[in-house]
């Protein structure tokens, strides 16, 4: 990926570049340990808004795409958001163009990123995951694949990320198909994610990432019914950081593959806490909504 090194030409000193903490992750040489959480930063839309300044000041050392599925999805009906004390519930529903639309429209644009690209995929069966991983993993623009396993397997009815057997079986199947780096995004909606992480590792996963959002809901003030169009969503933001720290500690004690830690990171101090808990990389999500350049700021604070 050295040929994708950013051209930091303008020498703008206003935002120090976090080049002082390079890290190796599954064979990738990254400038610093801060990446984005899937679904929390759309580089294509952001480029429309911020233009080339986004590419010059790209805040993450690797970029994780929004989750793609085999077929296109329009997403959940609104309302999709609810602000909580120090957090946010979202119920977006994975809107995306589907595999074909992603490969045709989005991948060419994402291949211009100044950092390595990690593509997030989600299937509702092992067959769907296999098709996604084979198609995406075959593209040289893709440095790694993250598996979003927070959905039910339509055949077993079990949520893959909540069952060690399902997770281990899925990884064994996918490992036999591809040599591309596979990262498993773990759900926090279990008593302890460590057994699932261990099963994923034994199945052949190269890394795990955690935590995804916590299942949550809000009440509409006017009706007393569910506020969100899809009734339930996932909680993110500083409100969940303490849970992330505990779950990262638990997984770190159970597996030897690297961990991408995330959950409410808003500052370099928060990132340091997740690294101390056992993460090798730290992903920033909701904080980017408040500060689009949060990734760079947090990386800089981490090094200072």
């Amino acid at each position: 990926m050295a040929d994708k090194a950013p051209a930091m030409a303008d020498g703008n000193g206003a935002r120090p570049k976090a080049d002082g903490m390079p890290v190796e992750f599954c064979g990738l040489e990254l400038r610093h340990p801060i990446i984005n959480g899937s679904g929390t930063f759309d580089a294509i839309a952001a480029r429309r808004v911020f233009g080339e300044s986004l590419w010059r000041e790209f805040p993450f050392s690797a970029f994780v795409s929004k989750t793609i599925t085999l077929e296109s999805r329009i997403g959940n009906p609104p309302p999709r958001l609810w602000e909580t004390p120090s957090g946010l519930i979202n119920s977006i529903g994975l809107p995306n163009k589907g595999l074909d639309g992603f490969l045709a429209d989005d991948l060419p644009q994402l291949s211009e990123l100044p950092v390595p690209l990690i593509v997030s995929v989600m299937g509702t069966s092992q067959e769907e995951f296999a098709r996604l991983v084979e198609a995406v993993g075959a593209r040289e623009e893709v440095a790694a694949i993250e598996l979003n396993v927070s959905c039910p397997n339509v055949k077993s009815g079990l949520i893959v990320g909540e069952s060690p057997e399902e997770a281990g079986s899925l990884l064994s199947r996918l490992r036999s198909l591809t040599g591309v780096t596979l990262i498993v995004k773990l759900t926090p909606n279990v008593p302890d994610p460590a057994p699932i992480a261990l099963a994923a590792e034994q199945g052949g996963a190269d890394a795990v990432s955690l935590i995804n959002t916590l299942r949550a809901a809000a009440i509409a003030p006017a009706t007393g019914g569910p506020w969100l169009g899809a009734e339930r969503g996932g909680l993110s933001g500083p409100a969940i950081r303490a849970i992330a720290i505990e779950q990262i500690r638990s997984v770190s004690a159970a597996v030897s593959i690297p961990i991408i830690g995330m959950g409410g990171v808003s500052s370099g101090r928060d990132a340091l806490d997740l690294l101390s808990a056992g993460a090798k990389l730290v992903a920033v999500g909701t904080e980017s909504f408040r500060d689009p350049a949060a990734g760079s700021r947090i990386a800089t604070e981490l090094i200072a």
Partner: protein
Amino acid sequence: MSEQAVEGSALGARVEAPFGRRACEVTRNLESGGYRIFSALDPSGPEPAPGQFYMLAAESGWGFEDGRPYLARAFSFADCEPEAGGLRLDFLVEAVGPGTRRLAASEAGTRLWVTGPLGRPFSPPGTLTEGASGAILVGGGIGIAPLAIWRRRLSGAGIPARVLLGFRDREHSGGLELFDCSEIRLASEDGHTGHRGYVTDLLSVMLEGDDATGAAVYACGPPAMLEAVRTLCASAGVACELAMEAPMACGFGACFGCAVPMADGTYMRLCVDGPVVRGEEIETALIPGSGH
């Protein structure tokens, strides 16, 4: 996009934002009826296009009410003017929740976090309807803000604009001084000023006559008002643009929260594909969760 040049930029052209958020000093905060007009001095941002918006948060005291507000809040700008030290941005705010209460309380000398300009601006009448040479601006409540700067820019380009503004009652009105024109037709639901009733009553009369010939309609206000404007314009065959609002976490296309149902059955992200939309693009202006 129009070829007409206004102060060096094409009228209706989207302006890119510098990447990231920046600290801007609040330079004034004035009472205006039931609202506040506050100004922030933007040291480095570009001149925005009317209809674009900013994400705003107070630098301190954000999160003061039980951990809220947490996210920044979206505001259209009502005016902008170069001043010593940067570009003065004017915003109209009504204190209705934790975010607007905190912003309404911002004192001169304190600082805001500002990201923007964001989103898609208003388009000139000639780009909405071939040959259209005039504009009708319809504003309701706090939604009059982006119409104030749009009227100035239209006027500067020699495009005549008629202004119709409506308010609920005396406590929920203000900001008229943002309009530097004398010919404003007013409506109020309580009858304290102008026509007793809705601002859309005034628009309806205008559309029924031949007043709207050669004009495009621009509206900003509560969802029910926007839907009424959309329906009236569709019936009259007059092009309209609506500056809309939806619950929004980021403002730059990252969160996918501000989904607006489109006429084709899909959703648009209002922050990047709006906030200004054409009437026929959307299924309804009555978006669940907005205007609550």
